[in-house]
């Protein structure tokens, strides 16, 4: 019973999603209007770690927490690329992850959207020039939106996903 008393006492902790810094999210390629309409209210995400240091993953985990609660926008994570609509790719693409990343992209049914998260996904960051790194994410698969930051905040990642789907600004934090 103490658990339920605590649940009642704490109340809703989900924070409304504010406007944020425009410089963080960069649109590389506008998603087609048809795809945006179809995926607008229900998006399944497959997360692909293409060689990241896991800093971005820690922030992505925050998306599902009660504070950021991505589910209120109809965004949820799935276990298989075949269920996914959106690939969330992190890290500089390493030689070992180049083919798995391509295969994941091919296994995802159309229409699909790719959001690259973190500075490494854009520029390879401190790993640029390393013998183990092939290049940035857009060198391997077409990227729709880049989210900058090392690591980016969960709110910025949410904004990046919603920008790709053309759903910003959100009403009263719920969209």
């Amino acid at each position, binding site marked *: 019973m103490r*658990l339920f008393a605590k649940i009642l006492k704490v109340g809703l902790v989900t924070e409304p999603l504010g406007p944020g810094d425009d410089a963080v999210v960069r649109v590389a390629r506008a998603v087609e209007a048809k795809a945006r309409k179809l995926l607008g209210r*229900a998006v399944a995400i497959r997360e692909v770690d293409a060689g990241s240091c896991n800093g971005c993953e820690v922030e992505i985990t925050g998306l599902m927490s009660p504070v950021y*609660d991505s*589910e209120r926008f109809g965004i949820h994570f799935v*276990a298989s690329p075949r*269920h996914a609509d959106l690939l969330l790719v992190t890290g500089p693409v390493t030689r070992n992850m180049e083919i798995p990343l391509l295969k994941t992209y091919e296994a995802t049914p159309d229409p699909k959207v790719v959001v690259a998260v973190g500075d490494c996904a854009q520029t390879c960051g401190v790993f640029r020039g390393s013998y183990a790194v092939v290049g940035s994410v857009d060198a391997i698969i077409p990227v729709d939106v880049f989210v900058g930051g090392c690591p980016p905040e969960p709110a910025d990642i949410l904004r990046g996903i919603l920008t790709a789907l053309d759903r910003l600004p959100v009403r009263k934090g719920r969209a």
Partner: protein
Amino acid sequence: MTGFLLEAAQVLLALALAPGLVGLIRWMKARLQNRRGAPVRQPYLELRKLFRKEVVLSTNASWIFRAAPFVVFASTVAVGFLVPLLAVPLPFDEVGDLLVVVYLLLLGTFFLALAGLDPGSAFGGMGSSREMTVAALAEPTLAVAIFALALGAGSTNLGQIVGRTMADPLAAVSPGHLLAFAALFIVMLAETGRLPVDNPATHLELTMIHEAMVLEYSGRYLALIEWAAALKLLIFFALLGNLFVPWGVAATLTPTALSLAVGALLVKLVVLAAAVAIFETRVAKLRLFRVPELLSASFVLALLAVTSSFLLR
């Protein structure tokens, strides 16, 4: 003739309500986690999206993989015809009884397990083997628990069981009924892939059961399987609600009785959804090797239910 029309209306109502029921449980769970959560209509939006998406098939998939979603969906819809949702007696009562219901549900499970094995992915086979373990333990409990009620009614026909309890309200609080309810509730959790047997919210490959089998599905195939799973949940809720607390089910086919029946069904579904949401907030997932213990406990409950209703007859 009106009976057949009512049957069709009942199945359409069940199909329309099923995704909403899943959405309601998700919304309640979100609020219990102090989250805002997705709106109740979210599963409808997801189904609409999946029906319009492309289908990606594995090159190793055979016809079984493509046929399985239709078998799963059709068998679940067929069960919808046999379960008394709104009124008793129904014309389809003649077609099948409790045994048909149990084995139609098992047919869907069987084909889903085959489809999990078919594309040859590692997680699919693991999910199939787990699902079969759970199904083999849960299926006899389901049958035996309803037998406890059938013993009192003198028939395995679900419509007649409902009619008997309505005629004799005291039977609803007999030990046989209460034990059978507990057994069936546990089986419902196992069969529909809910906590503590399977977790519908997690996507961790090592722990999932139902989802591991459908990992290879996409587009409209996935939509059919998800819809069938939601319908199965609604059917189990309706079984729990109408077999054990049959009041509200229409005995005559008048408009007032039927609208009352729809209202009663909605109330029962919401109460059971709240019960599942609160229960899932309170418990953690069981280790896979502990699941047989839970299911054998529910089997013992079902066995006691049959014994007590036999002795107290």
